[in-house]
């Protein structure tokens, strides 16, 4: 097999050795953290020590850290749970305010509430860089503050890496007494994420994007924030989330979270260096390539590990296939059902024309990325783009 150049860390990133080691060491242990005997108490101790380490890494209190089955579950729990809670307290609260570039886990949860529970979803516009302005949120809430159930805005976008002004958005929501949830799945590990300083009410994090295990996520939920459960059972996590806790995964996630927070400044500089190198050299290599997202590459504006390009006249899936054949793994960054690419709602919301949106690729760097990865892309890109351009977009539009 050809050497693989893995540049899809935003999809999932390899486990960190310290996480793998910590998790593996716990796998043989028996004991349900909810059991009262000695083995149960040992497991519970591992869980609670991990919760404390995770809380410290995220600027949260231990009681605010809830373990879930992953990012999608946390987003569902936050959006649906907050809606049911708020609407149950006051039936006028039906409006869900979302940025137009949210992940499907947030979007589709809100749309489900609209279809089945009478919610009204409002998509708040973003600028050409994909950023939602606090004034936009202010205007949307202030129009009728009593009818807002919740706000959800992601910390940083998964496709184009645009960083939202989270603290300022949280201040706007807070000034109206409206709870705000934030999907920070892409941000944690690359940016400084401090839950207490952010002013957020709820925040989603997941293990496998930071070098922790798959299948374990977090909902960081402010102590005073009430939430209606989505899944019912033993009520293990603050009576909000039920299910037996996965002790080994939790221990693995704690190790990864500590590294993510502790090495963040260094990691960000490393990723940004590689990303800037790729952007600069790719612009020189392919004359008409368009860089998607915020052109300002600083940490306030853009995830350091994210590079996004649109190649006029090409189809993203053709580019992906040709790069894959040369050992380079990236993403079209768009949602798939049965692997069928749709033009990205994120790019369309940013005002990117549909043709250009279809010809887009996301390269995302992570902890195992090296300068050789950038070299591999630069070596391959020109012939790949030439070939993909020849194939054109004939199959998507007759």
């Amino acid at each position, binding site marked *: 097999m050809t050497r693989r150049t893995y540049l899809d860390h935003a999809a999932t990133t390899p486990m960190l050795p310290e996480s793998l080691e910590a998790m593996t060491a716990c796998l043989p242990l028996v004991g349900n953290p909810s059991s009262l005997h000695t083995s149960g108490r040992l497991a519970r101790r591992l869980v609670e020590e991990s919760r404390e380490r995770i809380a410290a890494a995220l600027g949260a209190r231990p009681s605010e850290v809830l373990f879930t089955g992953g990012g999608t579950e946390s987003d569902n729990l936050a959006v649906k749970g907050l809606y049911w809670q708020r609407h149950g307290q006051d039936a006028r609260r039906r409006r869900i305010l979302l940025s137009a570039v949210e992940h499907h886990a947030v979007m589709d949860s809100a749309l489900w509430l609209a279809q089945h529970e009478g919610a009204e979803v409002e998509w708040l516009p973003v600028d050409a860089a994909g950023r939602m302005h606090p004034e936009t949120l202010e205007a949307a809430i202030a129009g009728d503050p009593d009818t807002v159930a919740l706000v959800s805005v992601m910390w940083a976008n998964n496709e184009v890496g645009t960083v939202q002004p989270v603290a300022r958005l949280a201040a706007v929501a807070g000034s109206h007494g409206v709870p705000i949830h934030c999907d920070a799945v892409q941000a944690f590990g690359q940016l400084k994420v401090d839950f207490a300083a952010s002013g957020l009410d709820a925040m989603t994090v997941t293990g496998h994007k930071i070098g922790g295990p798959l299948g374990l996520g977090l909902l960081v939920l402010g102590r005073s924030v009430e939430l209606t459960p989505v899944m019912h059972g033993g009520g293990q996590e603050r009576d909000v989330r039920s299910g037996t806790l996965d002790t080994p995964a939790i221990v693995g996630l704690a190790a990864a979270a500590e590294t993510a927070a502790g090495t963040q400044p260094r990691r960000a500089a490393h990723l940004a260096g590689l990303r800037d190198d790729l952007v600069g050299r790719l612009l020189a290599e392919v004359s008409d390539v368009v860089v998607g997202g915020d052109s300002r590459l600083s940490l306030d504006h853009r995830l350091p590990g994210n590079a996004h390009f649109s190649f006029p006249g090409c189809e993203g899936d053709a580019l*992906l*296939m040709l790069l894959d054949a040369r050992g380079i793994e990236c993403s079209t960054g768009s949602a798939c059902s*049965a692997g069928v690419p749709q033009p990205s709602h994120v790019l369309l919301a940013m005002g990117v024309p549909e043709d250009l949106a279809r010809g887009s690729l996301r390269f995302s760097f992570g902890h195992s990325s090296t300068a050789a990865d950038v070299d591999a892309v630069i070596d391959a890109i020109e012939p790949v783009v030439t070939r993909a351009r*020849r194939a054109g977009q*004939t199959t998507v539009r007759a």
Partner: protein
Amino acid sequence: MKVLAAMSGGVDSAVAAARAADAGHDVTGVHLALASNPQSFRTGARGCCTLEDARDARRAADVIGIPFYVWDLAERFRQDVVEDFVAEYSAGRTPNPCLRCNEKVKFAAVLDKALALGFDAVCTGHYARVVDGRLVRAVDPAKDQSYVLGVLSARQVARAMFPIGTSRKEAVRREAAVRGLAVAAKPDSHDICFIADGDTAGFLQRRLGSAPGPIVDVDGTEVGGHDGAYAFTVGQRRGLRIGRPAPDGMPRYVLDVSPVTNTVTVGPAARLDVYRMVARRAVWSGPAPRAPTPCLAQVRAHGDPVPATARWDGDLLDVELHTIVRGVAPGQAVVLYDAETVIGSATIASTSSAIPAAR
């Protein structure tokens, strides 16, 4: 060669891809997503392009050990196959959507894209053979699909690969089982893939609406009514709902469908006998019959080939049949063979039941 294997999720295309890989080609599997809103599961033998089919194709690619992608051709398929199907029926003709899909999608859009991306050939699970650059019938006469591929040009045939045309269906299924392909026992697909419930008349009615008109006898006497001439096809006997029996007491068949006057003409079976036909839009993968050429003509996918003499003037193809063929509808394709080898095909524009003067 770099080969793109179109994988439907069925047993034939899976074995075809496996054989291409075994032959030493660099094979990439591609599932063509043709439905814009795919169903989750197939129902029996009907329909295709479900999410389950895509998964079956992916699993077959895994077992064969080749890369696998899904290409979205839903819009192209809708325009070139589904809309064409509706337009042809509404014009009183009887189209073959499988043939159109091969002509416009699999060996046009997909082939062109594959060639542009650096592939040398497209491999499918059709039962046909390519021998010395010519399209030839499959070894299994019951499964032969050379008719629906007859519309391919020489250039398209040159880039096509049909690895299972040398085998019988039972052998293909056995081979799939030996190879560990889970689709070995999957039912064959039948009917028109984009009409999942098999109700073509219902599909056309939803698309074209109700358009009541008369059913007339050969002498013009109105003998009944219909809700849309498009629901009838030449040679059809069932569903005419004519109360009055014919004077001769014999069953009546659809002889003609005229969308301009919205009239369906019925008459006795003998009037369906066709001796001669004129066809347009000829495509040749063998030598075009500029001079009168003896050949075999086939007018439907599983019809018997009949001896004929064909002549092409560069525009119209004139086919004189030496054996009567019954119930040929305009819009059907006539495929000409030299023994087992395809010469070319054309779309039937008109038929004539008059016995040629020379005979």
